[in-house]
């Protein structure tokens, strides 16, 4: 057990969207912790609420959505210097456009979006945008906590570019985002995200839009940088392979609810929830038997407006307990030392919480 207190602690988070057609509970009671320097993977299919969770942490949920209840406890630095203390704030209570939230978004929690093309402005050079962010938030780079000069900020940007493996960094920082290839753009995005020495990095499907060999480069880079800077990462993806390679702790979501969470090795080698098990069985492998029928999860993902009653997975579940799963919603409970699942199959074996 890690004695360090969690950097981020999401407690019973509910996010709902009031649509014309009815209330959509996009996130319905999510709880998980992110320890300092840890990589937590959130994995799930479309509509599972993984991206909404990420937006809730950053206070970026758009109308008509809102955080209905729950806490997002974040341990922030009280000052720019390393000796400064820490305090816990509930991000769910902070106003989205307020000064505090903006300071946290820029300097403490950084985002690597799926499509870096959209994240960079096409009319400023990539370097200028990072320099600007540094001048705004980058006091961590100075021991005395004072503002950075433009020259210093530029030098830091060049160093960051070198760090993220961009060759010829002095020239590349004067390029516009559209002049860079997909891989370079994602590297520049990572440099921008790291520029303010965030303690938490949220990577939202950062490699979905890029090719497999470039993906391997970017994933390797993220791992290496994490080791170097000790940043905690929340890695959001639908790709089980990427999760297995990147995360140390995995949260599996389905239709807004956490189905299972635990250390990566347990999730992949001792999955407990029928959804996790079925998902792992159904992906074709590079080493498995070819041209035979794969075990499938029957049915399709229900529309968010038509969420089934009871356990959201019960209509597609092979182990459904009639009368139980169809009417009651299982809560997330401990089923092993560090593994939790929300499934009635394990509730009797659960430790009394």
């Amino acid at each position: 057990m890690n004695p360090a207190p969690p950097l981020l602690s999401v407690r019973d988070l509910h996010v709902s969207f009031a649509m014309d057609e009815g209330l959509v509970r996009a996130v319905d009671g999510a709880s998980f912790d992110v320890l300092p320097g840890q990589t937590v993977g959130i994995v799930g299919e479309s509509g599972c609420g993984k991206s909404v969770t990420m937006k809730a942490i950053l206070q970026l949920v758009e109308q008509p959505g809102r955080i209905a209840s729950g806490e997002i406890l974040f341990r922030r630095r009280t000052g720019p210097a390393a000796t400064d203390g820490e305090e816990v704030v509930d991000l769910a209570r902070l106003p989205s456009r307020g000064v505090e939230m903006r300071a946290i978004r820029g300097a403490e929690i950084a985002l690597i979006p799926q499509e870096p093309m959209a994240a960079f402005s096409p009319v400023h050079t990539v370097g200028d945008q990072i320099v600007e962010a540094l001048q705004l938030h980058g006091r961590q780079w100075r021991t005395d906590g004072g503002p950075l000069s433009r020259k210093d900020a530029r030098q830091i940007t060049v160093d960051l570019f070198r760090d993220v493996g961009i060759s010829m960094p002095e020239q590349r920082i004067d390029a516009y985002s559209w002049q860079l290839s997909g891989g370079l753009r994602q590297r520049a995005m990572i440099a921008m995200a790291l520029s303010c020495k965030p303690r938490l990095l949220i990577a939202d499907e950062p490699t979905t839009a890029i090719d497999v060999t470039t993906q391997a480069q970017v994933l390797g880079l993220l791992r290496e940088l994490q080791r170097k800077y000790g940043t905690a990462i929340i890695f959001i993806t639908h790709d089980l392979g990427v999760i297995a390679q990147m995360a140390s702790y995995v949260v599996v979501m389905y239709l807004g609810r956490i189905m299972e969470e635990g250390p990566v090795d347990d999730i992949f080698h001792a999955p407990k929830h029928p959804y996790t098990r079925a998902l792992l069985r159904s992906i074709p492998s590079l080493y498995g038997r070819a041209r035979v029928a794969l075990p499938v999860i029957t049915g399709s993902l229900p529309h968010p407006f038509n969420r089934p009653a009871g356990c959201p997975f019960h209509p597609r579940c092979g182990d459904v307990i009639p009368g139980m799963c169809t009417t009651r919603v299982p809560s997330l409970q401990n089923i092993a030392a560090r593994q939790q699942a929300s499934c009635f199959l394990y509730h009797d074996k659960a430790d009394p919480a």
Partner: protein
Amino acid sequence: MVAVAPDTSAAEDRVSVASNWTLVWWRFRKHRLALFSAGILICLYAVVIAPDFFSTQDPELTDARQAFIPVQTLHLFDEGGFKPWVPGIVGKRNSVTLRMEWTTDPARKAYVGFFVQGYPYRILGLFETRTHLIGPVEANQRIFLLGSDRLGRDQWSRIMHGTQTSMTIGLVAVTLSVLLGVLLGGISGYYGGLPDQIIQRMIELLQSVPTIPIWLALSAALPRDWTPQQVFFAITVILSLVGWTTLGREVRGRFLALREEDFVLAADLAGASRTRIIMRHMVPTFLSHIIATSSLAIPVMIINETSLSFLGLGIRPPAISWGVLLQEAQNIQTLALAPWLLIPGLLVIVAVLAFNLVGDGLRDASDPYSH
């Protein structure tokens, strides 16, 4: 399959089998203001079909002795029951200006009726009838619901006929420009290459020339001895020749985007002819959008016609349009004397607003896949 409560699945089924037009209608009827405007437009087009039915007298009937008669307000009840009437008019010659000055006198009631017999006319040139929606009970009496002009013509009846001309011009001109826009924009977007280049340059040329001088030049070129019908047709063509360019651009853009859609490629790979791909797969996908855009273009056409006629270069008397009617109100002295001659302008505003609101509603409703 997923178990859902029966009532939600019934609702779901209704949505599942709803065609695009049904979905558009479902969304459109949520816009109250647009729905109300659509009602106004329906009334206006009813007038277009049979203006004589709504008139109280022949719009060309002149009587210099009955010039500038003020509005005779319609009252519906009298003697404790439904008995519509208008106040009578009393004339007195002004001893200074020597002009007849008219005032209404509620004591002298002139009774009117609905579905009364009046002057003969033909509906759509087919059936001859004498029935009018509203008219004086005594056949030889004249009533002026919206007053009369300097020649003693009934403004109400003239507005009915002007509505026919102006609304028709708007519709026909937009239809023509839609045809031109879809055809040329379609060729431009679907084939690309040289035809695209030529059409795009043509659009740029047309758009770079200021519109009012073009109209002026074109209308001035119309032979003076043309009949009102010929002039009417010519004005429509002129308006649409200038007006198709925006739509042409839009259609081209849609074609360019749709050409990349997989379902268009699928039709191509199934062996569909080019005509079939365009007519069955491409046009229907943006038809609702085009209709919305056109309903926003109609008021522009109406205003254009009104301005041209107002300047005396569009529809010319004896033909009647809103612009021709407003020409009567060109001079300040007349306005001071007979402010009711501005009523056609009010109608232009109502029609343009109604078209814009309906167009907005249609545009919002026409893309059910936007969210």
